[in-house]
């Protein structure tokens, strides 16, 4: 069975890959993922804040103590050995490239245009085959500057990164845009090569005893897939960029649904964290078996088959169905 797919202009043997996560934090694990059949490796994100803060931390908290006191003009070993996290990221990317033969996709996460964007080029120089830009931010203030609304800021960032690199570029989005199809078309217009749907929203929790906000990240469930299927189905065939799904793929059935809705790539994180890297192999094999059992010619044949464009009952994606669903639930 031919499972091959095209994602970000890359010819992949099948759509399954680990999504951006700590999964790839050590080389042994990366190797295990390749052995489990991953068609590509997506690096964890390098954050704009990391790039800036890491540099400023030393400046703010270490340098202020130096050259103050006769007995000790410094307090740490010579910093030439100290590699900033962003540079370490690049070095690690280089080593992953040396370790595996599958494509490696770098990942950058930021909310402003600025100096950090040059890391896109550095990621390219370090050997990344493609780059995923994760533009995730929280417009917390009630009124955003009209000229700097979420969409135009995102477009600015994407454009800046596109200008910086020649490798294929994907944009990873959150689901919270007022008109996703229009926005996706605008991104498409910038020449991006793929859209990744969706960023799993970082949702901090509240400690009610200590009155503090505490960071929290839960693993996804299959239930989260439905939102993604809806938008994959809506966007498939509407834009040139290829589509990837991330968030909520836990079983081969989940994956098949996403591909039917239009995904050219399936990124898996929670399922691998829960079941180990070897689970990727089960998803690939399971999908192959399913395709064979159901007498598909290839995976290509299935991709987008249930998109808004191709499905037999597109109205089910629309408001009418919403109404119906609510009524059924009430009954």
């Amino acid at each position, binding site marked *: 069975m031919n499972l091959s797919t095209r994602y970000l202009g890359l010819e992949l043997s099948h759509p399954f890959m680990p999504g951006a996560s700590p999964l790839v934090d050590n080389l042994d694990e990366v190797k295990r993922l390749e052995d489990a059949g991953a068609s590509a490796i997506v690096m964890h994100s390098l954050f704009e804040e990391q*790039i800036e803060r890491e540099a400023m931390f030393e400046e703010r908290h270490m340098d202020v*103590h130096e050259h103050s006191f006769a007995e000790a003009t*410094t307090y740490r070993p010579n910093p*030439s050995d100290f*590699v900033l*996290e962003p540079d370490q990221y690049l070095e690690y990317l280089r080593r992953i490239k040396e370790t595996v033969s599958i494509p490696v996709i770098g990942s950058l996460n930021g909310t402003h245009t600025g100096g950090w964007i040059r890391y896109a080029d550095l990621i390219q120089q370090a050997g990344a085959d493609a780059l995923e830009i994760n533009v995730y931010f929280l417009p917390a203030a009630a009124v955003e500057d009209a000229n700097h609304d979420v969409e135009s800021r995102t477009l600015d960032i994407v454009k800046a990164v596109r200008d910086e690199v020649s490798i294929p570029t994907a944009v990873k989005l959150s689901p919270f845009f007022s008109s996703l199809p229009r926005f996706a078309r605008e991104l498409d217009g910038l020449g991006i090569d793929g859209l990744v749907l969706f960023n799993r929203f970082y949702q901090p929790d509240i400690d009610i005893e200590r009155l503090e906000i505490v960071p929290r990240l839960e693993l996804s469930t299959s239930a989260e897939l439905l939102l993604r299927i809806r938008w994959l189905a809506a966007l498939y065939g509407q834009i040139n960029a290829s589509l990837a799904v991330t968030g909520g793929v836990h079983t081969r059935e989940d994956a098949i649904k996403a591909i039917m809705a239009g995904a050219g790539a399936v990124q898996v994180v929670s399922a691998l964290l829960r079941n180990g890297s070897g689970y990727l192999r089960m998803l690939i094999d399971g999908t192959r078996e399913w395709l064979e059992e159901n007498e598909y010619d290839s995976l290509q044949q299935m991709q987008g088959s249930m998109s808004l464009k191709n499905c037999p009952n597109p109205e089910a994606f629309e408001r009418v169905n919403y109404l119906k669903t609510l009524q059924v639930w009430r009954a």
Partner: protein
Amino acid sequence: MIDGNEAAASVAYRLSEVIAIYPITPSTPMAELSDEWSARGKPNLWGNLPEVVEMQSEGGAAGALHGALQGGALATTFTASQGLLLMIPNMYKIAGELTPFCMHVTARSLATHALSIFGDHSDVMACRQTGFALLASASVQEAQDLACIAHTATLESRVPFLHFFDGFRTSHEIAKVELLADEVLREMVDDSGVEAHRRRALSPDHPVIRGTAQNPDTYFQAREAVNGYYRDLPDRVQAVMDRFAGLTGRQYRLFEYHGPADAERVIVCMASAAETAVETSSWLNAQGEKTGVVKVHLYRPFSARHLLEALPDSVRAVAVLDRTKEPGSGGEPLYLDVVAALRESGVERFRAERLKMIGGRYGLGSKDFTPAMTKAVFDELKKDEPQNGFTVGITDDVTGTSLPFDRGFSVDRPEVRRAVFFGLGSDGTVGANKNSIKIIGEHTDNHAQAYFVYDSKKAGAITISHLRFGPEPIREPYQIDNAQFVACHQFDFLDKYDVLGYAATGATLLLNVPGDADRVWERLSPAIRGQIVEKGLKLYAIDAYRIAREQNMGARINTIMQVCFFALSDILPPDEAIARIKESIEKTYGRKGRAVVERNFAVVDAARAALHAVPVPDSPLGDEIERVAVPEEAPEFVKRLTSVLLAGKGDLLPVSAFPVDGTWPTGTAKWEKRNLAPAIPVWDADICIQCNKCVMVCPHAAIRAKFYEPALAENAPETFKATEFRSRDFPGMNYTLQVAPEDCTGCELCVHVCPAKDKAEPKHKAINMAPQAPLRDAERENYRFFLELPSPDRAALKQDVKHIQFLEPLFEYSGACAGCGETPYVKLLTQLFGDRLMIANATGCSSIYGGNLPTTPYTVNGNGRGPAWANSLFEDNAEFGLGLRLAVDKMADIAQRSLRALAPRLGDSLVEEILSAPQSDEALIAAQRKRVDALRQKLKTLPDGKEARTLAFLADYLVRKSVWSVGGDGWAYDIGYGGLDHVLASGRDLNILVLDTEVYSNTGGQCSKSTPLSASAKFSSKGKDLPKKDLGLIALTYGSVYVASVAMGAKDAQTTRAFLEAESFPGPSLILAYSHCIAHGITMHRGMDEQKLAVDSGSWKLYRFDPRRIAQDQLPLQLDSPAPRIPLSDYLTQQLRFRTLEQSDPERFRELRRKAGESVKAGRSLFETLAGFPFKSGNGNGGTEK
């Protein structure tokens, strides 16, 4: 552009194979550089990598070196002062065995009446009898060149060398030097000397025996057998110097004469003073005088022949200057050597009637040696009967030794540009100046020199930078006092220090002025305006903080002020200067990422535009009253002496002003109001739950709580806050939490630890930071009022955290870093036991913030009682504490005997009560004090007699004293461990508090045996790969020692309990206290959170081992921290010391983290097992309560 330390180390490193080190100021940078080079894989001259080994003490380093040399390696070390003293026994051995070896010493004072980290020759002079050759360098260039000559000569002569230069003055001066290339070293060092050294090595392949014991028939002759080597050495060294001259053009001589052939008056001296003397002599000769200088390079062996050859025939008077003091001798060592050489020469012109000779002391403890002082000495030589045994540089109004000198005298060359900068350590001034001098030295034809004067306080430290540059080499190793450019980077310094005193007439004055820089004139005090007008200064101002703020750079104004300096000083064309600054920004900050570089670029561009020229009117205006250094109510001693030191005028004080024996009053820190905090905590009484945790963690005792009768607050200042005291034990009382606005350092530890939050707006806590300036005056009055409120009855307070924090701290406003992790423990110690506390303090951070003048933090309570504090050495602090204990016990014993003897007359019941009263807690102590008071009253009624007088004198010893040895992990784990172990085994009632920062904090964060696995520190920059020594575990195996491990930020109640238990235990006690530190690379206001993470992750255990429990059939070890509840990495990733490795070598980090995890688990499991072990078979001291 390098400093003296780097100059010497660069040669020593390239010519060595084994480098045994131990940190000691001011030599530490040489060891650090060697370690850094080795870590980076830099090879030595022969292509192999020097092995750099940190030892537990300089004594240990010397032993290791002796062994390495016997093993045939080329070895070196770097040390100073007490460290050099610890090496002396091995120096005799190394010399006695004729071993080629060269060590490099930054000559430093010895601890006598006081410790001094600064420079003189006391340490080196204590080695002149060891058999080492002593070779002195006078400048940074010489420190490099003579290092090479010393290493070469030792290989050729077999006599070991001690190469030295002046601590700080040369070791820390940055100068433009001609560097020695590897090729020169290769030409200099003869490999046959190396081979010969190797052939003599101990080896089972050609065995010999060394270190025999010799009998009377042998020892003497065998000792004399070395004579030929010493006889030949001066000529050999001169030959090496000549060869060096052939290669480099720089000719050195054993005794270098500088001056005309017809000089009549000559000064003989060595090291940096010789440079000053030569400069001054040339200046005087240009005025028609006939003077000269002999600069001594090779001091041992002392070659009389070479000295005689150096002196001109015309000489009629000689003054020999020694930078050391030898009380009770006929003269200082160099003087005696010169006298002996000249008088014994038999040369007619050196006979007493033809040649006047005097000797004197100068420059002890880095007292600046200036041209004015040199001139005073030359002038003295004009007299018919010049004074011998003089001092110069001070006013000795007690024994009259001092030569008067004219402070205004100067030999400043007009072509030399001089600039002085006043800054804060934290604003980056020194770093910027180091950078500027590099730009000038490397990008112009100018020679340049930089020297930096630092503060003795760590928080809010002031720095003074002295920069010189000019077309000729700079040979002025003394501070600048008439600069053509003076910059004051902190506006309030103008009133605190005599900044303008450094300015020459017509100089440029640059001020950093917060706010409107245009209107600076109105904000200057009349005195300052007067000086500006009188000296005709050109005034410029900038608001550098505004620019820094706009670029999100906090208080780092370094680059901004640097741009202003270049803009005003006209050394480089403005555009080139800017380009160079940007280049160096790129170099310095490039590593830290683009963001930092861009921010610095932005301030460079903003700085030029924001610099204003301020018009200076013809006459000063205004009638403001000048500020005084200390308040009117300060004690006489503080007004007379301390205030002068605080004003930076200590050099002017005469000998008679000072205590003769190093004994100073305590409680002086309170008179120095430093006003460091930009923001201070403000109390919201409505939200406060009165837990007093903020009071407990405050490192500077600058936030305090009291409860009191409401009536007492009737006349309180208007803004004084109070609320009802929430306490069942003390109903109807008021409670106040008060900040000391002028003593707070603004560290925010208190705010971070505050658990009380506004329910509706949780970001608002019971204390919140607010700008200090608008609050200062009102809060100063509130604090004054607060201090006058009565302190509670100590005996009536519960011994929990909340109530103990009502106890008066007798350690306040120290010079420790803002947010220090050590001082909260020290403060707690004084709260609990302060009025009967004796502290033996190991050298280190705690001795510096505890005892460095001008002001000290230990203080007294209302009865005049408080901690008595002394620092002996670094290495002997446990023993020193034990000695105090023995003495106190002896005094108590004598008092008790007298008491018994007088019992029939005093009344048996009182005597019996006093002798048998338990004194294990505050209430019992208070009862005993009452008895002793009664005893004193009774004694007054007795007829005068010896026994009664003895008892009256010693009666206070009947109240139990609490004796503590306090120090850091460098002391307890490393250099003082042997003594500490012995004291633990002594069974005596000594308490030991280890302020464990897991590095040598005071010298800049070097690795100790307490450094945890995977942490990077200096001397283990690649991450420590062995676990932290478990000192607590070692101690508790005795079974007779009280041992506790505490971390205030994790469990303050456990800390308090441990202190109380340790103190009450009638044998040795050891408390290991986790202390966060700036060397950890943390955000300091999170210090207490770091402590909690350390405990929660299992990295730091909390426990108490109490031998008393054994006798009570209880398990002695109580584990007070639960099993780890967060992953170890949650703790490690918070601190740069761990992150460094994660980022520089992630694989090694993972491996070490894995080992660290295993080590934490194993340690935990061992302690869990021990917690179930009864220790019955141990040497259980079933001690009863005291």
